[in-house]
């Protein structure tokens, strides 16, 4: 399914966080959103996943107009999200956190869950199998039964991504999945993103500050500055766009181009 965002605007009091932002993600595409701190990247993702309600504009996902839908309905539609600051249940194990991520696929009610019989039993077994597939995919086997709070930061970020994948999304919103990581950990995450995209055909919206990673991974890049899209296109085009270089990237971009 494809994502279409048109003329999206969001204001906090007098501050215009987003100003007529547009963006399109085709099925199976990796699209990055970059920009300096405070450019509105996270606000933008919050609008798509339903945490913020935009004041103007439309967000379409496939045949649905999901503008101002509540977050759980958006998730049920197949838009998964990994947060910048790890948002997991610290006291639960990796396995439990991931199973929770599959909530929308557990199609049984409270009563059968209490009895743990029939659909609930079958559903749980199926959920475990699917979660194990994600654990295998994200190479989390050593941590399966460890409470998330006891894990190192890099691993928690991986669990965060795994939790979003457990939802079986058709579109994944990744908010700085590599922030604060060492080179090797970044390489791992990059590999997971590419594999999720290539093997599962998941479309990805990536927010990331590591420009090298963005340039290597993305099919297309959008540049936000003060809530406005100042450039969009293939990585090389964006990197050589004088407005982008001038506006905020400075010398770092020149070396990449």
């Amino acid at each position, binding site marked *: 399914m494809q994502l279409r965002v048109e003329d999206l605007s969001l204001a906090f009091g007098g501050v215009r966080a987003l100003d007529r932002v547009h963006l399109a993600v085709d099925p199976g595409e990796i699209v990055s959103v970059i920009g300096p701190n405070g450019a509105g990247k996270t606000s933008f993702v919050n609008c798509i996943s339903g945490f913020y309600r935009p004041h103007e504009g439309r967000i379409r996902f496939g045949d649905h107009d999901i503008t101002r839908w509540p977050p759980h309905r958006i998730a049920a539609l197949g838009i998964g999200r990994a947060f910048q600051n790890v948002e997991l249940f610290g006291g639960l194990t990796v396995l439990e956190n991931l199973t929770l991520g599959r909530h929308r696929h557990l199609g049984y009610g409270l009563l059968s869950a209490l009895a743990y019989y029939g659909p609930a039993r079958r559903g749980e077994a199926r959920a*475990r*199998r699917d979660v*194990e*597939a994600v*654990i*295998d*995919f994200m*190479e989390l*086997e*050593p941590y*399966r039964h460890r409470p998330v709070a006891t894990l190192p930061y890099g691993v928690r970020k991986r669990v965060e991504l795994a939790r979003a994948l457990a939802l079986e999304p058709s579109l994944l919103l990744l908010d700085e999945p590599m922030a604060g990581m060492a*080179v*090797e950990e970044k*390489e791992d995450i990059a*590999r997971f993103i590419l*594999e999720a995209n*290539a*093997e599962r055909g998941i479309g990805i919206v990536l927010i990331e500050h590591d420009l090298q990673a963005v340039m290597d991974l993305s099919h297309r890049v959008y540049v936000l500055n003060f809530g406005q899209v100042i450039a969009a296109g293939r990585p090389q085009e964006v990197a050589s766009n004088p407005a982008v270089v001038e506006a905020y990237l400075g010398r770092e971009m020149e070396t990449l181009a």
Partner: protein
Amino acid sequence: MSLDPALLGLTLPQILARRAREWGDGRAALREKDLGIWRETGWARFEQLARWTGMGFRALGLAPGEKVAVLADNIPEWFYTELGVQAVGGIVVGVYASSVPREIAYGLAATDAVYVVAEDQEQVDKLLEVRAEIPGVRRVVFEDPRGLAGYRSDPWLLGFEELLELGRREDEGQPGAFERLRDAGRPDDVALFCFSSGTTDLPKPVMLTHRNLVTMGYRFTETEGFRPGDDYLSFLPLAWMGEQMMAVATGLVAGFTVNCPEALETAEHDRREIGPHLMFSPPRVWESYARHIRVKVDDSTPLKRGFFRLGLAVGHRVADRRLRGEAVPWPLRLLELFFRVTLYRLVQDRLGFLRLRKAYTAGAALGPDVFRFFHALGINLKQGYGQTESGGIFCFHRDGDIRFDTVGVPYAGTEVRISGEGEVLVRGASVGKGYYRREDATAALFDDGWLRTGDAGYLEPDGHLVIIDRLADVMRTGAGVVFSPQFIENKLKFSHFVREAVVFGDGLPFIAALVNIDPETVGKWAEDRKLTYTTYADLSQKAPVGRLLLEEVERVNAGLKPEHRIRRVALLYKLLDADDEELTRTGKVRRKLVAERYEPLFRALYDGSPEVPVKARYQYQDGRVAEVELNVTIWTVGGATAEGEGNGLPAAARR
């Protein structure tokens, strides 16, 4: 069930066929944890998969006598490949999965491998990197297709599933062909190439026949009473002779179930789930368990620490008496029973040793302290001795006849004698054929039909073999003091603050050491004392850390003869690593190379300087090289000289 001597005249695939016929799928041959669940493969299914793998390679064009290399962790496909290839007359070569591309290229070229089974994208990438250097390799078969979608257009690569399918069709198309090939196998055909450990030289491929492997497995099983259905966890590299001998040779002969861990990092957890009946590991694994237990104990409450110490003291007393063959008086026995229930069994459970009947260490010398430690905890740890060239171990302790200083007694049919120069020589059906394509080295390896082990040792009157050290490694200081560096290194490594130690002194005025601190335990020690540090190099050069390690060295010195004591020591600013060739793939130190690479440090150990500036070079994984300048302190150990004061501050501790 008693062991059938007819097995001694069979090849490994012939034994597998017999197991499949006798037991069918009623008994598990292999078990692998996949997607969180232990999945079993019965003997008949094992035979079938090995058959399809073997016939698959045949369909690709494998001729008898050609070599197939395996570059994978311990996965069932390793076993299918090994037995399948051997059945159709091929030879299997194990390559360490942790090898860097250059080492792989060397290994494949040195063995003339024509096919390679690679586990996953990581291994395939390494092979692609050195593709130009291995023109002899016709195809690469990969097990895990993940991440390889983009490589599918390359005709060099083939999926394991496709190989099996190819083999199935080949097998069905020519009924009886596989059986004819398998039954044509003779015990004296070469079955396996295992690389020698290569502490002194580049690793050389050792040729081992079916007879070598089966004899070893048979004698071991016969003496030690392994039973069909026993569980064994295979977590050490199958490219290592020790693992080959346990998981493949002994496994087939004894008929036990080989369990493959989910991932290398989960082996500890998986072991607890499996609860193996037997364990076989080199000393470094046992050392790490001992260190692990000690760290956990140090981390607990004072009450628990005290209880552990008490229990260990009782365990030591009981173990010492038992091992000397003395009776244990009943009050002590009562105490032991108490601690068995309240302590030993609990520790064993943590390690997954509750069902453990037999535990072995081989590959290098295990420090007596570690040995005693495990016996005190009620774990029946025994030492074995052998080398790749002799087809695995041929000497080991028997139950009730365990002595820390010996490696036990040879098994039936193997003769051991000591040469004029004090070298241990061995002869028997398990001794291999020598090195592949290295006639010169092979000629030097044998002395009139006896295999030269290269180890200095002697036989005790009661038949126990005692190993002193590598013949080439026994050293003599400038003052003529003869010593074994390995012995001193093992003493040092018993400290849980020491990861690795390299002792020098050959032709030099005194004995000195370079020490690698253990980053985890020392790091924790530093944190507990609010000592901040950044990198390993920084931590290693903190004065309090130096003093801590100095105390450890002094403790070791106290247990050594005065002339064997370490006089000067420095802490290395980088962990010795197999990737940098400082250690062998099996974790043994390459002493000469370390001395050359850390030449300024080595020199400073002997010229009396209190500290020496060095330039440390680091190569990151992405290829960048960073250079850091730092000063390394050389510590002079108090109490090392006869007139020194044991507790005095060292001369160099003035930073």
